[in-house]
């Protein structure tokens, strides 16, 4: 599937595809959720650097997640999942409730972020060029351009980008484009206390992630799996990918996201067919009429 020589799907070097000559290596994030301590330093560091507004003082009751979801005012979001499987109760008799922590109690934490997809639907559908591919292969909203059409919002298969109500424009993670420009690492990964969020060139991160999964498997952590690392997946691989300890949907991630524009040529073919049908109908409507 290509358009004007540019592919809409499959593995690709996005910066070169977007017209940069000799771009720097593509950079991204590898977020290893197995060592996330849920401290939310990433959320705060992001907001401090980017001047992202507060998003409300609401106790959500979703474990320790009072942020809720990624959005215009949340570019990093730490998800908290408490899991347990029921276990046998202590054998000791006596009155009262059963005692003891569930044996399989797990508290999963994961810092979610814009995936900076290889094939980014938000970028593809943006009509103004506000959303664009940077020389680093990242996807950025240009705040001096965005006119708030809102198209990017339902286009994103991960539910990342959103409109800032008071402002009208769409906002999301820029991977600290201004910092990348001067050779600095993004604010979130720099702050991350345990290096759960790792920043680097994507190729190197993918290798590192592969080794980490092997290490965890050797340690008996069979639930570890990578998410968004595969350049052959539905979005051409994510610029920000993850090591998860459960299915993606448990963290609020789509299990098999696909960039909507993969189907764009087919859509246009159907639209053209429909246009022809309408033309035929119109001609038919006038058939028999004469001047």
């Amino acid at each position, binding site marked *: 599937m290509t358009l004007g020589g540019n592919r809409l799907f499959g593995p690709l070097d996005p910066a070169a595809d977007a017209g940069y000559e000799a771009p720097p290596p593509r950079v991204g994030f590898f977020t290893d959720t197995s060592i996330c301590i849920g401290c939310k330093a990433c959320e705060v560091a992001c907001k401090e650097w980017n001047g992202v507004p507060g998003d409300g003082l609401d106790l959500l009751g*979703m474990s320790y997640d009072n942020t*809720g*979801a990624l959005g215009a005012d949340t570019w990093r979001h730490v998800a908290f999942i408490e899991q347990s499987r029921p276990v046998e109760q202590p054998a000791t008799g006596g009155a009262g409730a059963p005692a003891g922590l569930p044996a399989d109690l797990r508290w999963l934490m994961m810092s979610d972020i814009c995936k900076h997809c290889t094939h980014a639907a938000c970028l593809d*559908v*943006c*009509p*103004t*060029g*506000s959303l664009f591919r940077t020389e680093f292969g990242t996807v950025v909203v240009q705040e001096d*351009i*965005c*006119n*708030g*059409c809102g*198209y990017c*919002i*339902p*286009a*994103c*298969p*991960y*539910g990342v980008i*959103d*409109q800032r109500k008071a*402002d*009208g*424009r*769409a906002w999301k993670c820029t991977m600290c484009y201004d910092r990348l420009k001067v050779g600095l690492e993004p604010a979130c990964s720099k702050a991350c206390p345990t290096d759960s969020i790792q920043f680097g060139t994507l190729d190197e991160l993918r290798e590192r992630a592969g080794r980490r999964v092997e290490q965890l498997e050797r340690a008996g952590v069979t639930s570890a799996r990578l998410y968004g690392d*595969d350049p*052959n*997946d*539905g979005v*051409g691989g994510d610029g920000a990918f993850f090591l998860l300890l459960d299915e993606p*949907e448990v963290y*609020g*991630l*789509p*299990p*098999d996201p*696909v960039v*909507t*524009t*993969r*189907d*764009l040529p087919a*859509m*246009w073919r*159907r*639209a053209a067919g*429909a*246009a022809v*049908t*309408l*033309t035929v*109908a*119109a001609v038919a*409507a*006038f058939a028999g*009429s*004469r001047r």
Partner: protein
Amino acid sequence: MVPQAEFRSYYGQPVIKKPVWKWDIPAYFLTGGLMAGSSLLAAGADLTGNRRLCRASRFAAAANLAASTWFLVHDLGRPERFYNMLRVVRPTSPMNVGSWLLAAYGPPAALAAASEAAGVSPRTGRAAGLAAAVLAPMVASYTAVLTSDTAVPAWHDAYPHLPFVFVGSAGASAGGLAMALVPPAQASPARRLAVLGAGLELGADEHMGRTMGLTGEPYRQGTAGRLHRWARALTAGGAVMGATLARRSRLASAVAGLALVAGSACTRFSVFHAGAQSAGDPKYTVVPQRERVDAGDAVRATG
């Protein structure tokens, strides 16, 4: 009815974001369809010498063009930056393509109406009207691509069907509008277009309902479902009435025509709400994807 799906999620929260589009967008879909259909009717009428129909349709196209423009600009978060729509040519963006399309369609459509209103330069008016009519079918159908080219399950998965629903709805509503504006005697092409459009819309919709599976469910539920039922009734009723009573009665013609316009409006708003509903429930995002993955059929590029 699709059986209740078992799935996991993050506190039942949606995976994707609901569209932030306000009512302007489905309203634009309606007026966009109306102006496209009207331009076709105007050109046909012009070529077949149906001045009454031509004049009314040119005005209808222009009026809906104005309304469409207002809706589109009004929906923007930063309306003062509307001109950025033409900042780039981005073929991957149906909205950008649509903007260029409207930029090409709008001036001739407006010129045709201006010529009609002023009664000057009918040759220019015809040329403009024909130019508008050439672009009109795409104007009517691209909005389906605009809708489908999203991650919203009910919209995306409907992409094979929505263009036909939309052009059908455009034909039905434009025909209907002309039926309301033009005496029955001059409105027969409009009636035919309306009936053909309504048939196309209802047929495409029926097919969509039968083939879409889980992600078609939102079209049948909640606000979208109610609007959908109204749309079917109004469109079918308007078409039947248009094919029968409206041929003789100006009143019946007007009623049938307005029913068709209203039916089209219900269709557009039904689609709009179905999208919002499917985006708001993680089931529609997670279940089909999970089924693909579990079946070993995850989407993968092959070389």
